[in-house]
């Protein structure tokens, strides 16, 4: 077994995570976590849809922000994809997508305030970077032969419209639809920093112990995502896209003086601002690194590695739930429901709920990340096993799982896992806002105490860390010759 590079890589990552556990802060600190959890589930079972009209407004705003943000991001991303072969464009896109939506929101909040533009840009900017990368990958896959056969003198635009777009249309559409679903999740969690979407409503209900209200919100959110194929129809799309900007709410007007001050004063490192010059910059940076950045990076990396391995283990446990190689239709249906819930719930919301119930530690974050990502990969792997035809005398039960299925799907399982490595790290950093000591915690604290200069440096460091993990993940996938389609 050890002679397989995939097995060796898996064991190395397992060992790193186990060592990480020694340093990680894993505990349940709440006085009575199970009672709270019970109350929460009682709330989900007895949802209260009518407590206030705020719920429907929040739902409407969530959809509106998602549509406007994804549309703007999609259009910008498409044009960026056309020039993606230029290195500066690729670096720029890698940079803007390495910064999480919530970080973008925190930045824009400082100078645009609670204006709808804050929420729209927070989604549109990172999504542009993601769209640019994936669209360009899809366009590259198009068959080059028809383009070579065009008569010389054919315009570039006509050639593009006739030979590239039709060939990629289905994939472009599928990916954009998937991103819209992600956009709904992103939009929902923007509420946690104060924008008028579902997250805001959830946080309010939770902090007041109104679990039935929170339950109603979660149920509506699942219904919203599960019914996307019903209400997002090609014919209705123009209506949504044109209409969405009118439902973003008014927010508060932009004070342009704030915008100017943010760029000319707030984010200038304080030694420069106070006239200490470059001599003061080094100690300032040193202090920032030692007291905030390094502990933040350490915790982010540890939590990411533990969450990555936990995701992997959970995936291997979950995929049989929807695989038609095991059990009957009832188990598969409930398996589907469970996986849909796990992957539809943004990890941020899962972590928030578990953190409220279990108290602050890394445990809620690990469980939330593993549930969400395990749900996504488990779903993909489970579906993949359904295409496998086994010989009719193949073993059953645990033997079938261990000897027939896992070896067949292990490579694509690893491919998906390493693909999501960077995503898990981005989320880990952001979960700091909830009070876990990852980079997001230090960013949030810096912003709370109006040290925007430090916050910007920390956000930059977070982006670099994400880009680094992305490169490493890609290197490992190439080394192991693992391939994925950009659908996860």
């Amino acid at each position: 077994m050890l002679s397989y590079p995939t097995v060796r890589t898996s064991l190395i990552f397992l060992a790193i995570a186990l060592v990480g556990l020694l340093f990680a802060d894993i505990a349940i600190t709440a006085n009575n976590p199970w009672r709270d959890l019970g109350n929460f589930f009682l709330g989900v079972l007895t949802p209260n849809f009518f407590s206030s009209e705020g719920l429907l407004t929040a739902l409407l705003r969530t959809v509106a922000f998602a549509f406007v943000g994804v549309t703007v991001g999609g259009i910008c991303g498409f044009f960026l994809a056309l020039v993606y072969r230029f290195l500066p464009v690729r670096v720029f896109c890698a940079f803007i997508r390495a910064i999480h939506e919530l970080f973008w929101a925190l930045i824009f909040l400082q100078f645009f305030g609670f204006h709808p533009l804050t929420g729209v840009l927070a989604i549109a900017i990172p999504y542009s970077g993601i769209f640019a990368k994936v669209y360009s990958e899809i366009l590259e896959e198009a068959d080059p032969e028809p383009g070579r056969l065009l008569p010389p003198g054919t315009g570039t635009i006509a050639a593009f419209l006739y030979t590239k777009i039709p060939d990629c249309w289905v994939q472009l559409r599928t990916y954009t639809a998937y991103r819209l679903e992600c956009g709904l999740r992103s939009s929902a969690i923007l509420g946690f920093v104060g924008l008028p979407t579902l997250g805001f409503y959830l946080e309010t209900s939770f902090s007041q112990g109104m679990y039935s209200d929170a339950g109603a919100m979660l149920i509506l959110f699942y219904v919203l995502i599960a019914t996307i194929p019903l209400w997002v129809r090609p014919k209705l799309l123009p209506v949504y896209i044109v209409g969405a900007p009118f439902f973003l709410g008014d927010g508060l007007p932009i004070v342009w003086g704030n915008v100017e001050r943010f760029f000319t004063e707030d984010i200038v490192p304080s030694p420069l601002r106070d006239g200490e010059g470059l001599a003061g910059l080094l100690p300032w940076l040193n202090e920032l690194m030692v007291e905030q950045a390094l502990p933040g990076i350490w915790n982010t990396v540890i939590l990411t590695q533990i969450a990555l391995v936990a995701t992997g283990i959970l995936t291997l446990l979950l995929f049989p739930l929807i695989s038609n190689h095991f059990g009957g239709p009832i188990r598969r249906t409930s398996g589907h429901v469970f996986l849909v819930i796990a992957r539809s719930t943004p990890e941020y919301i899962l972590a928030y709920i578990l953190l409220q119930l279990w108290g602050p530690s890394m445990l809620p974050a690990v469980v939330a990340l593993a549930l969400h990502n395990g749900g996504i990969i488990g779903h993909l792997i489970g579906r993949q096993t359904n295409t496998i035809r086994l010989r009719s005398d193949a073993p059953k039960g645990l033997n079938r799982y261990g000897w027939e299925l896992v070896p067949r799907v292990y490579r694509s399982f690893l491919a998906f896992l390493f693909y999501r490595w960077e995503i898990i790290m981005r989320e880990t950093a952001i979960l700091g806002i909830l009070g876990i000591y990852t980079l997001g915690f230090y960013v949030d604290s810096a912003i709370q105490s109006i040290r925007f200069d430090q916050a910007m440096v920390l956000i930059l460091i977070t982006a670099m860390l994400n880009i680094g993990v992305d490169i490493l993940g890609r290197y490992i996938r190439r080394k192991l010759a693992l391939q994925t389609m950009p659908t996860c």
Partner: protein
Amino acid sequence: MAGFDLSGLTASFGGERVIGPLTLKVKEGDQVALVGKSGAGKSTLIRLIHNRVDGQSSLVPQELGLVNALPVFHNVFMGQLDKHATWYNTVTLVRPFKQDRKQVLELLDALRMSEKLWIPTASLSGGQRQRVAIARALYRNAPVLLADEPISALDGPMAHHVMQLLRDRFETSVIALHDVEMAMKYCNRIVGIQNGQIALDEPTDQLAAADIMSLY
């Protein structure tokens, strides 16, 4: 430009020479059949000629090069994308103009598949797809036809019909064929390729089928 005179034609794959160096002169009115064993380098030669004449030819490659997601009409229309402004081509993508529809329909009628005008090429059979690529070459209407096994997926009567059509529509052509009988019937000059070199080059009326068989 109807004929061409190309010299120093060479091609290598992985350091190994597969074609040439050879010289090929085609006059206006030459209807050349390229014959030879598979792997002799016929397809490579067709590609080479296509590149050397700067695309001033109607090409039917072996892989056809169709855009599968587009209907037959648009695949054929692509043969004249250079003749129209970008806005015209863009509108055509959504809603074709009447005169273009008529022209393309006439061509498809000649190829006996007019009922397939709006069918995506992905859902056509191999022979139908081949005829779409031929229709595109006809619509392109370049002075020279370069075709690589254009009738390989067509049944007997249809193959004869298509070869007849190509002979009538293109005064000058270079067609790679593995069927010697077809080559003798529809082409006025036979060029035999062996080991990447021209092993035979004669007018058809001075050849017997047995002369060609020595190449195989």
